[in-house]
């Protein structure tokens, strides 16, 4: 055997614990170590999703701004001006955009997460990597669009001369909550879609329904106080209220609502991870 450079590494690795391939036993265990080992691949998947999205598009990155902006215009006109839905003292555009910011992120992250496994079935059946990387990459890739539409929001804040508040420091926390929500639901959907292919078609309806169940087009104060906790079971309710409060200072610090939502997010995330891991043990056989 030659003692060339690569061969010299072999004895080192052989001393490491051998990899054991066996029927799935502890499938619920989240492979943190492995995910860390494959972090570069995660980066590449995110990079790929972003690049592919913007290649060969005429509007490209502008779409990330246009979608929330146009929706905000329509809402401001119909829900605000015409239907006179209360906006907690905020100018209508600010009121709606501050909610559309996390909502658009959530909706697009969900759409791409749902088909994450199925779209990549060729790669899944030919190479090994922890499958969690796929929905994780779609959820992270959505942050780029979020960043771009946030810039638009910053411009709007300047235009409406909204003051900079200390509450804005809470924004990263609510953003994290939004990401975890998208991840939790995304894991469920991508796993379900890998097995039941029509989930993808149910998605648009689900997203629309969900939007109306969230305080995007109206403030959560519309919901009577004694039902607030039930309303909070929608994790996005806490996220959106949190965004509105931290960015524009509307309403009081959303305490109970956010707490319930955060609890739901945790539940969704843990159960989503479990279901996804279970699906992963047979994914390459069924996808």
């Amino acid at each position, binding site marked *: 055997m030659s003692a060339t450079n690569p061969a010299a590494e072999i004895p080192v690795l052989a001393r490491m614990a051998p990899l054991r391939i066996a*029927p799935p036993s502890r499938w619920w265990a989240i492979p943190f170590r492995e995910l860390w080992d494959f972090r570069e691949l995660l980066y590449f998947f995110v990079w*790929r999703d972003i690049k*592919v999205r913007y290649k060969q598009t005429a509007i490209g990155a502008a779409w990330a701004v246009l979608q929330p902006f146009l929706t905000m215009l329509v809402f401001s006109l119909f829900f605000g001006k015409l239907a006179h839905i209360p906006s907690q003292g905020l100018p209508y555009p600010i009121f709606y955009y501050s909610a559309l910011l996390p909502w658009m992120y959530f909706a697009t992250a969900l759409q791409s997460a749902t088909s994450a496994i199925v779209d990549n079935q*060729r790669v*899944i059946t030919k*190479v090994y990597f922890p499958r969690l990387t796929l929905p994780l990459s779609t959820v992270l890739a959505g942050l780029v669009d979020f960043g771009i539409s946030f810039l638009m929001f910053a411009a709007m804040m300047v235009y409406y001369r909204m003051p900079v508040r200390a509450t804005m420091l809470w924004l990263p926390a609510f953003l994290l909550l939004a990401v975890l929500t998208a991840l939790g639901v995304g894991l469920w959907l991508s796993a379900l879609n890998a097995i039941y292919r029509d989930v993808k078609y149910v998605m648009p309806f689900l997203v629309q329904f969900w939007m109306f169940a969230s305080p995007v087009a109206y403030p959560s104060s519309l919901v009577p106080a004694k039902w607030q906790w039930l309303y909070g079971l929608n994790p996005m309710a806490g996220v959106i209220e949190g965004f509105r409060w931290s960015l524009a200072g509307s309403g009081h610090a959303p305490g109970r609502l956010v707490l319930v939502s955060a609890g739901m997010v945790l539940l969704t995330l843990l159960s989503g991870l479990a279901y996804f891991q279970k699906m992963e043990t047979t994914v390459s056989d069924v996808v």
Partner: protein
Amino acid sequence: MSETVIRAEGLGKRFRVGERERYLALRDLITRTLAKPFRRERKRQTDYLWALRDVTFEIKQGEVVGLIGRNGAGKSTLLKVLSRITRPTAGYAEIHGRVGSLLEVGTGFHPELTGRENVYLSGAILGMRHAEISRKFDEMVAFSGVERFIDTPLKHFSTGMQMRLAFAVAAHLDPEILLVDEVLAVGDLEFQKKCLGKMEEVSRTGRTIVFVSHQMNQIRRLCERAFWIEGGQIYRTGLANQIVGAYEADMSSGASSGDNGNRAAGKTRFVRWTIEDEESGVPNILASTGRVRVAFGVQLSAPLRMGVHGVSLYNGDRNLIWGTAVYNLELPVGTHSLVHELPSLPLRPGPYTWRVTLWDEHGLLDDWQCVPEMLVTTEPVTHPRDEWAGVLNIPAAFSVE
């Protein structure tokens, strides 16, 4: 340096086949659940298929092992289990070292990205680090030969160019253990040669390779050991040459033993051919480099006058190895055996084809490319690689005087 790098113990993989639909839809699940109380309980038989069953083996570091077997025998499934793409149903395997799987060429390629971007993406998917890809980038592009187009979107590449680029990336994978599944069967001949060369280079650096192929010459060239997989189990293991020889013998014995069956009856024609060779005992297998008698049976419906009988022998690459002709044959009606006796036919192992013709004063009577092929299963006496030793298998004696 004889550490075990792959050890498998009773590996098994079971698939469910039959009634189950390939893709389920939620609506079906819902209707089925709702209809359950109303439906008569049918006996649902779930058919299982054991794609792998009780597979046990050990592969040491630096070995190049070939996996051969019929389609559906379980070779690709075994590679998939060892690559962790699919989980085994039973048994376990232990792997020491980094594994690189080449189950497909162009894994991860995306048509919208440029060649450069795809190299990075594909490399990352196959398991290379970013730094590693950057380091080997120029080498990979040079190997593929698509430097000029490296920054154009992949969808503008021809399929050949895509394949070359894909293989260039895959060939520069640097794992301790390489699992390769029939990827060398793609591309034109020149490309295949290049890929084979690269594989040989890799095997020389001491890496362990497990290689699936249907091309026996590749197995012979690259592998020291071979596993013959049949019906999900390891049927035989041993030296590559021996196992391949046995496999080929098994494959051909099922075919017709040299009968020229589907040709027009009643006319003058060749009807069969055999080797009269004691060593192998099978009429179309040549196992020795010594004396051999080849007989071609011919059926004449009319007397033959001024007959010319031509014989040609072609090797696996369709090159003419030997040819001869016999003139002025005079034969009566009936069946005759035209026998050629050769003091020696020193050929390297592989498939060969006989072709015989018969002419008379009026023209061509019959031209038959003999089936089945002749399989030569001799031991190569010189270098095991054909490219260094050629076609002949001559045990020459050497001396200095």
